[in-house]
């Protein structure tokens, strides 16, 4: 997975910035659109080198579809996580069983790893402590399996099948 051309990266950055501008102003007045386009072009020229590596390749329809499918899946996991937290906080005996476990991931892309770490932090009972290469150190509130393979099966597998398509 090499880097895309500079033009494609630049166009992608400007596109994302302009969409953020549209959301922030929430008006379709031509004056607003013009000034937004000018600012996106300037800011895009300054920041596209750090913003993206793949440029327009990110807008591949398969990736976009998987991303849209990922949103409800992720929100559902998040609500379940909060009900789990509610149970642990309100239960009089405080049923926690914490520890730090190690997981392995098959993702290689840096943005993919970031997305996986964020997803792990917001889903049931786990929080990312550190990432070293392909190893994740995760604080788990209810340790069910101490081994590396078992923990990966429980924690990272459910997200990897989505994130692999989106970011690889």
């Amino acid at each position, binding site marked *: 997975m090499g880097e895309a051309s500079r033009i494609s990266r630049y166009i992608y950055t400007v596109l994302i910035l302009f969409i953020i501008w549209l959301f922030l102003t929430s008006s379709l007045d031509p004056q607003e659109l013009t000034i937004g386009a000018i600012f996106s072009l300037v800011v895009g020229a300054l920041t596209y080198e750090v913003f993206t590596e793949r440029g327009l390749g990110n807008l591949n329809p398969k990736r976009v579809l998987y991303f849209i499918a990922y949103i409800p899946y992720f929100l559902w996991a998040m609500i379940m996580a909060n009900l789990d937290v509610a149970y642990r906080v309100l239960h009089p005996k405080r049923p926690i069983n*914490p520890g730090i476990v190690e997981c392995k991931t098959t993702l290689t892309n840096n943005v993919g790893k970031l997305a996986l770490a964020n997803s792990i932090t917001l889903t049931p009972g786990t929080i990312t402590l550190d990432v070293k290469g392909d190893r994740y150190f995760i604080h788990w509130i209810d340790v069910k399996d101490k081994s590396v393979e078992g923990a990966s099966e429980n924690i990272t597998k459910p997200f990897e099948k989505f994130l692999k398509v989106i970011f690889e």
Partner: protein
Amino acid sequence: MSVASIIGQALVLFGTFFYVLSSLGLIRMPDVYNRMQTATKSATLGSLGVIIGTGIWAIGEVGSYSWIPKTLIIAVFLLLTNPIAAHALIRAAYKSGVPLWEGSIVDRYKEAESSLERVEEIKEKLEEPSQEVETNE
């Protein structure tokens, strides 16, 4: 009272409930790491509920749709930055030596760190003789 107002109010109530849970978790949990768990998750979902609920409530109350995109982008921003802040805090806590709760079962991170240190020590020992040779020359 329109439907949008009712949905918005329900969402704000839902968010507030998780805010309460999050602060209750701060009191009840035994150590930094477990507190972080409850604080991050509940506060993030609570904020999402309150922020988007406000946007929907505004449709019913003020009749304006321009709140929705703004609240949505604030919600996405929070969703992206909150876990990173939590990660930075918990990692800083571990690095500055805050102990785990005594009930904790397993600490793979410590094992990995100590094994890394051992590898580095061995490397230094291996490099020392070659450096001496260089200085002699």
